[in-house]
C-alpha cells in the first residue's frame, strides 16, 4: 500500500471493513481467468480497445520529433476513465455489491461510472459539486440519461474535493452493499494500485503498438497530464522500471504557478493526507486543504496520487506544468494541425512540447487522455468562436 513514504490507508474506522474487503480481494479477483476474460472482452467490444497509437505527422513536423498520440479520446464515453470503471464494476459485482457511488469533477468519471452501472444493471449515485453541476450541464444530463442519480455536494468549495468527501461520507453511511468507484489513482490503498492496474492497459498497448510502428517497445518520452493522475499512471505503468524512457507529468499551472490560482501540486504542495492517502498536497501551514485552480475541471485536485508523489520525489518522472493560456493554445493547435480537439486536461500535456528539446529521432508518446467535446463551451468563450 505504499510508494516510498506515500500512500497508505488513513481512513476512518467506519470504512475499515470496506477497505479490508477490497484489499483482501482485489488482486485475487483481478487474477481470476473469468474476470480477465470479461474485462478484456468489454475493453475490446464495448470500450473499443485497443485505442490507436497515431503518428501525428503535422505535429511531428512542427516539434521536430516523432510524436505519437495514444488515442484514449476514442474510448467509449470519450476518455481513459472508462478503463477503470469497467474494471471496478466487475470487482463490485464479484463482491456482491448492489449500489455504486462515485465522485466527479467535470463529470467524465461520473459519466463513465453511470455508463458501467447501466451496463451492469446496478444502482448508481454520483456526487458532484454544486458549482460543477451548474457549469457541466451536458455531463449531468448524460448521467441522468444513463439512469444515475446526481447528488450535489454543497459543502466546502462545492467542487471535486468536496464531491469526493461526500462520496466517502455516503459510503460511511452505507458500507455494506455499496462499492465506491474512485475515479483516479488517489484515495487509500488499494485504490491507487487498483486504478493504476486497470489503467495500465494504456502502456501495455503502447508497447506492442510502438513495436509495430517503430520496431521498439520503448519511446524516449511518455508525456501525460496529472490531476489525480490516473491517465499518467496508466501511460507510465509498464515503463516505470526502464530508466531510458523519460516520464513527463504535466500539472496545471492555472494563471501561473505563483499566481495563487494554480493546481501545480508538486511545486506548491507539501506532504500530507487527503482522502485517506499520504501524498503531496496543497495545504495551508496549518494543514487545511487548499482549493486549487485550473481552467480544466479535471486537473483542479489539491493532491496527486501517491505513486506520482513518489515519482516526483525520486525524480523518476519529470514534473512540468502548463498555464491555462498555454493549454488552450495547445488544444487549438492540435485541432488545427491534426483534426483532433483534445480535452483541456490533455491539452496541458500537449503544451509542454515546446518546452522540451527533442532530438529529431526521438520517439515521443503523448497520452491523449480525452476528447474536448465536453470543453467546447470553454474553448468557445476563450477563443471567442461563437
Amino acid at each position: 500500500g505504499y510508494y516510498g513514504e506515500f500512500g497508505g490507508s488513513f481512513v476512518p474506522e467506519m470504512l475499515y471493513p470496506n477497505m479490508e474487503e477490497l484489499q483482501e480481494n482485489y488482486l485475487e479477483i483481478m487474477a481470476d481467468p473469468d474476470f480477465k476474460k470479461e474485462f478484456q472482452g468489454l475493453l475490446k467490444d464495448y470500450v473499443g480497445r485497443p485505442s490507436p497509437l497515431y503518428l501525428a505527422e503535422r505535429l511531428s513536423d512542427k516539434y521536430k520529433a516523432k510524436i505519437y498520440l495514444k488515442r484514449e479520446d476514442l474510448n467509449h464515453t470519450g476518455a481513459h476513465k472508462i478503463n477503470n470503471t469497467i474494471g471496478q464494476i466487475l470487482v463490485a459485482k464479484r463482491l456482491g455489491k448492489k449500489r455504486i457511488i462515485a465522485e466527479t469533477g467535470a463529470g467524465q468519471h461520473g459519466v463513465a461510472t453511470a455508463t458501467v452501472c447501466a451496463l451492469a444493471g446496478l444502482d448508481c449515485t454520483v456526487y458532484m459539486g454544486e458549482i460543477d453541476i451548474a457549469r457541466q450541464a451536458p455531463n449531468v444530463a448524460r448521467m441522468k440519461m444513463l439512469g444515475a442519480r446526481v447528488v450535489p455536494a454543497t459543502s466546502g468549495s462545492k467542487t471535486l474535493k468536496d464531491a469526493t468527501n461526500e462520496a466517502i461520507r455516503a459510503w460511511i453511511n452505507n458500507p455494506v452493499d455499496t462499492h465506491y468507484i474512485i475515479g483516479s489513482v488517489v484515495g487509500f490503498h488499494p485504490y491507487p494500485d487498483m486504478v493504476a492496474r486497470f489503467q495500465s492497459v494504456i502502456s501495455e498497448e503502447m508497447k506492442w503498438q510502438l513495436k509495430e510502428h517503430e520496431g521498439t517497445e520503448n519511446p524516449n518520452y511518455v508525456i501525460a497530464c496529472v490531476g489525480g493522475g490516473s491517465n499518467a499512471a496508466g501511460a507510465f505503468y509498464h515503463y516505470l522500471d526502464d530508466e531510458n524512457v523519460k516520464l513527463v507529468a504535466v500539472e496545471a499551472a492555472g494563471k501561473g504557478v505563483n499566481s495563487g490560482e494554480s493546481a501545480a501540486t508538486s511545486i506548491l504542495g507539501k506532504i500530507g493526507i487527503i482522502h485517506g492517502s499520504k501524498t503531496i498536497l496543497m495545504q495551508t501551514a496549518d494543514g487545511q486543504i487548499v482549493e486549487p485552480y485550473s481552467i480544466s475541471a479535471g486537473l483542479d485536485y489539491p493532491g496527486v496520487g501517491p505513486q506520482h508523489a513518489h515519482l516526483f520525489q525520486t525524480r523518476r518522472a519529470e514534473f512540468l506544468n502548463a498555464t491555462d493560456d498555454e493549454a488552450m493554445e495547445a488544444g487549438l493547435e492540435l485541432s488545427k494541425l491534426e483534426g483532433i480537439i483534445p480535452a483541456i486536461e490533455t491539452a496541458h500535456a500537449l503544451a509542454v512540447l515546446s518546452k522540451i528539446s527533442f532530438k529529431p529521432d526521438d520517439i515521443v508518446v503523448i497520452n491523449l487522455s480525452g476528447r474536448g467535446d465536453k470543453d467546447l463551451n470553454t474553448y468557445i468563450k476563450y477563443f471567442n468562436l461563437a
Partner: protein
Amino acid sequence: MNRINQKLKENRKLLSIYFSAGYPELNDTAVIIEKLQKNGVDMIEIGLPFSDPLADGPTIQESSTQALKNGMTSDLLFDQLKNIRKTVEIPLIIMGYFNPILQYGVEKFCEKCAEVGIDGLIIPDLPVDVFHDNYEEVFSKHGLINVFLITPQTSEERIRFIDKISKGFIYMVSSASTTGAKNSFGNVQSAYFERIHAMNLSTPQIVGFGISNKDTFEQATTYARGAIIGSAFVKCLTDQGLNGIDSFIDSLR
C-alpha cells in the same frame, strides 16, 4: 493517573460533549468548556476544525468551516487552552483529523497537549495500526490516551485487538453513519450494543454518533459506560448560542 481513567472509575453513566473549537465565535472555546463543566458534564471532546471532515455530517462540517473562517488554528487552540486547567477539572480530549496534526508535527502536537492539560486524542482517520506502529510511544511519553473507534461492521478479531491496545475507552460508533443527531435507536443498534456487551471487553466503551437527547442517551448507555453528544449540541450552539448550554445539558439528565 490520567483524568480519563479516573473519570471512567466513577459509578455513573458518563456524559461527554463534543463541540468545534472556535465556534460559534473564535474565542468561545474556553467559555464553553467552563460552562459544560459547571453543568456537570463528565468529559469534553474539543474539535480541532478541519477543511475536509470526512467522518462528519453537515452540522459539524458547518461548524468546522465557520470556525476556520473565524480564524481557528492549532496554535490558537493551544493558546485558548493555556489556562484551562486553572478552572477545569474534567477530562479534555482533542478530536481532530490527522493532517493538521501531521503538519503541526505529531510530537510537537503531543507536547503542546500535555502542556495545556489535554488528556487524550481522537483522530478518526489515523488508523489503529499506523498509530500502533509509529505514534504510541510519543503519546505515552506525553501521557496522552489515544481513543480508537469501533463500528457495527468492525470484526470481532479487530475489536479484540483494539481492546488490547486501548488505554482509556473505546469510542463505540452507534451505527454506520457520519456524525449527526438521530431521534431514536432501533433494533439494529440494540443488538449491536448487546453483542459488544457480551464480548466482555476490558476497555470501557463510550457510545457516540446519533445521540441527541435523554432517550438516546439512556439507550446508548444501557450497557456502555457513557455517551458522547456532538451534532445535537453544536446545533444548540448554532440556534441559541452559549445561552442555550444550560438548558440543553439539563434536558439530558
